[in-house]
């Protein structure tokens, strides 16, 4: 048993503050401002998310103080410029997602949906009045937005959605339902994609609009500290000025998703880092057969594999950020990064759980929570398989989403 004490004394085991795994010094490529933003978000996650997240998950709530504090940090809608938005680089946005998701995927989801899925379409496709009315308050978190595309029967195939809008006098009337809507129940407004005369259009629905309701979906084993809802429209009447004038067709929702998926490719690295961190520290302090399990080859093999995959994922995310900022990206670049980084993060969470042994299933450690979260992250914003098909189409020029030629 002395071995243990000896290790503690020699400083092999330290409880020093979070020092992100950054084997290739990828963060040295960031600007000074990006590193400062990273530190602010990282400190906030350490002080305000990690101590509270397990309880929030147990109770199934997204704490309102998180909304307020994320709002006061001014990181919502990070890459958008003007209208009170931060106007940061896409790389900075990615770093923010990574740091938030080290806390919890639900926290990052909140920020992704608000920024990329609700603020972005208003910013890109909204009227001047719409931008002035919503964006400044959304940037500070005073107004929460959500994004309604997926329907109970149309997930990977949103083009066949059945939610409909009909022009009626001085407004529109919406009918239909959306599902798996992050932030839905707490949202002040929803960006809803519905067919108007057979063409997909975006509409802004406010929470008090008649005929609109957003009941929360219960019973999730994943993203428990995130609000997930249905959006129900029963003859929901909205004024005419709520249609997004700037876009028609699937390009609207897809351009939102590109930005959100980009953020996820960074966010997943944060989850993976948290799982690696916990596994390393556990392996160093868990004694079996008189030695820390970190001294055994099978454990070292697992840790080395994690290091390898995280380092690759970091480089992928960083380079994609460069491409976003320089405008040299194509959607397929984002598909590859989202798919890869979430995939390795989930596998790292599983291996980390393995290293933690039975302790890994307890909420004393973050790994099972990240693992369960990442199952959702793997599926939302384009499933892993759909991203493979996007790449497959890019490689071959042949689409394989449908059975038609």
């Amino acid at each position, binding site marked *: 048993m002395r071995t243990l004490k000896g290790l503690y004394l020699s400083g092999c085991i330290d409880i020093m503050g979070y020092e992100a795994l950054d084997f290739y010094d990828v963060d040295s490529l960031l600007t000074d401002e990006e590193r400062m933003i990273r530190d602010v978000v990282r400190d906030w996650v350490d002080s305000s998310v990690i101590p509270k997240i397990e309880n929030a998950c147990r109770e199934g709530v997204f704490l309102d103080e998180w909304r307020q*504090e994320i709002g006061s940090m001014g990181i919502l809608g990070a890459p958008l410029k003007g209208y009170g938005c931060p106007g*940061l680089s896409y790389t900075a946005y990615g770093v923010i997602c990574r740091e938030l998701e080290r806390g919890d995927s639900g926290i990052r989801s909140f920020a992704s949906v608000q920024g990329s899925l609700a603020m972005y379409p208003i910013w890109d496709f909204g009227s001047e009045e719409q931008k002035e009315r919503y964006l400044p308050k959304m940037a500070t978190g005073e107004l929460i937005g959500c994004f309604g595309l997926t329907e109970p029967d149309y997930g990977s195939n949103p083009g066949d959605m059945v939610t409909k809008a009909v022009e009626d006098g001085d407004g529109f009337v919406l009918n239909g339902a959306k599902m798996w809507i992050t932030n839905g129940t707490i949202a002040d407004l929803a960006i809803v994609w519905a067919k108007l005369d057979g063409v997909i259009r975006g509409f802004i629905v406010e929470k008090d609009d008649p005929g609109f309701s957003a009941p929360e979906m219960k019973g999730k084993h994943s993203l428990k500290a995130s609000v997930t809802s249905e959006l129900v429209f029963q003859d929901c009447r909205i004024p005419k000025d709520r249609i997004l004038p700037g876009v028609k067709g699937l390009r609207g929702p897809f351009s939102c998703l590109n930005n959100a998926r980009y953020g996820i490719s960074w966010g997943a690295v944060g989850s993976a880092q948290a799982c690696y961190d916990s596994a390393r520290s556990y392996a160093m302090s868990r004694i079996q057969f008189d030695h820390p399990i970190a001294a055994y080859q099978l454990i070292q093999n697992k840790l080395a594999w994690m290091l390898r995959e995280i380092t690759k994922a970091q480089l992928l995310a960083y380079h994609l950020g460069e491409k976003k900022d320089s405008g040299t990206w194509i959607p397929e670049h984002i598909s590859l990064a989202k798919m890869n980084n979430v995939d390795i993060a989930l596998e790292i969470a599983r291996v980390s759980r393995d290293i933690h042994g039975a302790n890994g299933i307890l909420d004393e450690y973050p790994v099972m929570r990240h693992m369960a979260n990442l199952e959702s992250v793997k599926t939302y914003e384009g499933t892993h398989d759909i991203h493979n098909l996007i790449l497959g189409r890019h490689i071959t020029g042949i689409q394989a989403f449908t059975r038609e030629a």
Partner: protein
Amino acid sequence: MKAAVLIKQVPDTTAKIDISGGEVDESGIAKWSISPYDEYALESALQMQKDVGATVVAITLGPDRASKSLVDAAAVGADELVHISHEGAIGSFALQTALAEAVKRVGADVVLAGKQAADTNAGSTASGVAKILNWPCVGLVSKIDASEGEFEATRSTVAGLERVSVSSPCVFAFDKGEDKLRIPNVRGIMMAKKKPVQKHTMADLEVDASNGGITESSVTYPPQKPPGQKFEGASSAPEVVSRLRDEANVI
């Protein structure tokens, strides 16, 4: 009113301290931060900015890396930034003289500082600066209510907390403050980088940067602890207590 906040950049309190050649190996320190008590001083000055329209001047003394702490201060709202550049060891009196001179030059009416820095753990600066300026000093402060030229502060004493009043100009040394530290805002960070920093050297402040009467100084690791000892029965409690006093020096 002008409030000068003396901030020191220190290794983050969670940083691992490595020593080589009798000095702390700075290359091993991943993160530098504003010393924690200084942050409370800064927060209090920012309250004065809000309550009585005070101009907040952040002043630091240290090598080039220390300018980052000024940017951090600007990110939460400091209006003016002053960097006194100095590398290496410096005696307490020379350091306080330089800071006092900088305070005079910016024309501050009140100085706020942390009660001690997280690296040296000394706690001399605020009181020494007050003496050199010939201003009163209130130590172990947790809260200040400012009105024009007058302050009421809560300070901690052996007997408990007390409210004291003091007039400008004066110096406050902060304990943990009652006000929650504000979270920086990214817009503040972006603007902070562009804020000009007034640079001073010891020479232009006319300070002799000597190390006082200190002729030698080195840093070592604390002595290795003795191996763990196990005692049987409650009767061993006094023995353990006396070891905590004499061997471990912790009570």
